[in-house]
């Protein structure tokens, strides 16, 4: 129903734009003196007046319709005023199921009557909505056409509407982010009412597998975030050890040494690395790299776990190479040619020029790239879910298995979930921690990149 209404609105706007345009042309021809706006602006203005208020009305209607209909149906069921909220919501979902014809068992006569009531109310609401939207569009079109005249500032009005629309779009993005943060904070707060904040933040044991039902046998549970966070940082550190030198050196080679044709081929190839799905990296890590590391460990006499931090970290490092190399590449390319020439003209070699002039000048850009890659590594999920371990362990040995924040969130939310149990809620607290860490990294990266912009 609302789909047809949207199509109707679009059609109405289009035809009103055409009508407005031709009417403005006619008015302008007869006008004395200077005309303010070109006819097309009058046309657009009418279209906006026709479509936008009606569209807003449609949205508001859709938001409130189901609540109002539910209230009315519920009021019609005898004895419903004594139900508690969860019971009435269960009842209402049953009514809706029956109304849409999904019968699991023969419904009770009250539910049957309510379903019929529900259906008739829905039908009335749909007609009312169509009528209201059509009236709103007609009123808008009427006023839009009425104001057409040689001195009416249709251009200003259209430009204002466009500006407002852009503002609305940017606000929407911010609001959605805020919504995500609030849902995280809210559930995390729930968690902290069950597990003390200090225990979560400073605890050295992470054993979240506690019982969810009375008949389950499970451990006591401990929610110390330190070992999990430590695992994230260990794997990220291994990834950075792999990616930072490789990325920066390849950027130096590509900008300063390689032939332009070579660069034109290699740079896009390198950037393909960023486009490989992380799940592919994941099975590369778990099926190829981890066994290779284990065999090498055996050959050298080390004990290597099948889910070593080294395997996950190294593969993650390969994944983030393109972030570092691409951003460093841009940073080097942004150093003016005059800097290089100035250095060469003083008799500096290529190596001296790179080390003493280009690297310091490009450093902020490189740091920005490295931090961006780091926040990517910290938040990376698929590779570690597949290749890192599940047991939180405080160890410096890269051949041992560690777990990460993202892995724990995934395992906590898979399977039985109950939202008044610390085991499930812990996922939100972990998510909040991860969010704060990456936020800080991103802020630092933004700050350095901005500083870098002021350089030249």
């Amino acid at each position, binding site marked *: 129903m609302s789909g047809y209404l949207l199509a109707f609105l679009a059609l109405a706007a289009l035809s009103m734009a055409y009508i407005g345009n031709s009417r403005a042309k006619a008015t302008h021809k007869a006008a004395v003196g200077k005309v303010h706006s070109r006819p097309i602006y009058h046309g657009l203005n009418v279209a906006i007046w026709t479509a936008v208020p009606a569209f807003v009305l449609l949205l508001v209607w859709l938001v409130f319709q189901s609540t109002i209909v539910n209230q009315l149906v519920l009021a019609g069921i005898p004895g419903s005023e004594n139900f508690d909220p969860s019971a009435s919501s269960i009842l209402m979902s049953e009514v809706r199921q029956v109304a849409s014809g999904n019968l699991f068992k023969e419904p009770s006569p009250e539910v049957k009557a309510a379903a019929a009531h529900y259906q008739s109310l829905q039908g009335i609401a749909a007609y009312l909505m169509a009528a209201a939207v059509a009236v709103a569009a007609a009123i808008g079109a009427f006023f839009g056409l009425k104001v057409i005249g040689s001195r009416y500032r249709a251009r200003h009005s259209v430009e204002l509407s466009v500006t407002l629309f852009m503002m609305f779009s940017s606000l929407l993005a911010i609001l959605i982010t805020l919504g995500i943060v609030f849902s995280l904070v809210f559930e995390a707060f729930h968690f902290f009412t069950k597990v003390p904040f200090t225990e979560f933040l400073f605890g050295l044991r992470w054993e979240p597998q506690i019982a969810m039902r009375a008949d389950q046998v499970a451990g006591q549970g401990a929610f110390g975030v330190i070992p999990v966070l430590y695992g994230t940082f260990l794997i990220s550190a291994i990834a950075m050890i792999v990616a930072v030198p490789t990325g920066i050196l390849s950027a130096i080679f590509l900008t300063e040494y390689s032939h332009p044709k070579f660069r034109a081929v290699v740079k896009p190839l390198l950037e393909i690395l960023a486009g490989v799905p992380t799940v592919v990296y994941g099975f590369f890590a778990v099926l190829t790299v981890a066994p290779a590391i284990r065999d090498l460990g055996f050959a050298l006499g080390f004990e290597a776990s099948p889910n070593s931090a080294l395997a996950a970290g190294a593969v993650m490092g390969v994944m983030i190479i393109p972030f570092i190399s691409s951003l460093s590449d841009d940073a080097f390319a942004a150093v003016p040619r005059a800097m290089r*020439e100035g250095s*060469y*003209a*003083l*008799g500096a070699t290529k190596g*001296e020029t790179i080390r003493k002039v280009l690297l310091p*000048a490009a450093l902020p850009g490189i740091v920005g790239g490295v931090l961006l890659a780091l926040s990517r590594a910290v938040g990376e999920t698929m590779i570690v879910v597949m290749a890192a371990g599940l047991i939180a362990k405080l160890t410096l040995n890269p051949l041992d298995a560690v777990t990460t924040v993202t892995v724990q969130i995934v395992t906590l939310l898979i399977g039985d979930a109950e939202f008044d149990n610390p085991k499930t809620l812990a996922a939100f607290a972990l998510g909040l921690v991860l969010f704060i860490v990456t936020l800080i990294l991103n802020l630092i990266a933004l700050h350095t990149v901005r500083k870098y912009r002021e350089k030249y």
Partner: protein
Amino acid sequence: MNMMSEAAVEKALDKSMSDAGLKMIGKDVSVYYGEKRALFDVNLNVRKNTVTALIGPSGCGKSTFLRTLNRMNDTIDGCRVTGKITLDNADIYDPSVDVVELRARVGMVFQKPNPFPKSIYENIAYGPRIHGLAKTKSDMDRIVESSLQRAGLWNEAKDRLQEPGTGLSGGQQQRLCIARAVAVSPEVILMDEPCSALDPIATAKVEELIHELRTNFTIVIVTHSMQQAARVSQRTAMFHLGNLVEENDTDKMFTNPDDQRTQDYIMGRFG
């Protein structure tokens, strides 16, 4: 009976030229950018302790010629130089020549001031440091001070040596670049329109500086300003469409040039 071989004759000739104070000799110099030829068999000599000005309309090849003198064209892809250029009678395009050493002997100042994003001190110390010219910190301090003094920047910069060189005014930056070039004690300094980005007062200062530097260095300067060529140089070379039109004493060039095209250009009839 004169039995000297041709090579010996040439050698003797070269010697007599260098005795006459020729620092650099360009013989049949041609430059190609890919397929495009930018210079056509230019024969131009640079005299010792003299300011040689290269003039001519835009795109005539004067900057290209200047950049062949310290092989800065090597950094441009697809650029090829033919002919022979010597510095103190040694071919600078000989395969045995180290470009880095050559550029330490033939310094360069660019059109736009291009100080490094480092402190004033570090800008000057950069060259001496990579060439190992200073053994101790006090040696380096001395080099920095004398270079800044020679560039006439010491009084303005001595209290702010640790501040970034990019914070100086345009004219000061250009003198910093000259000081930077002077700091490695080159024999020749090439200047590519060093004043084109400067206001008249800063220009006057740089010109005065060029005048003083002449006693210790050989200078080649590319300029678009006839007045500047007349003010600072002793010898002037006029380029047009990649050819050397005329090379003469500056006084003669601006009063009674041999070539009609030079006359036209100086009078402002083209270019």
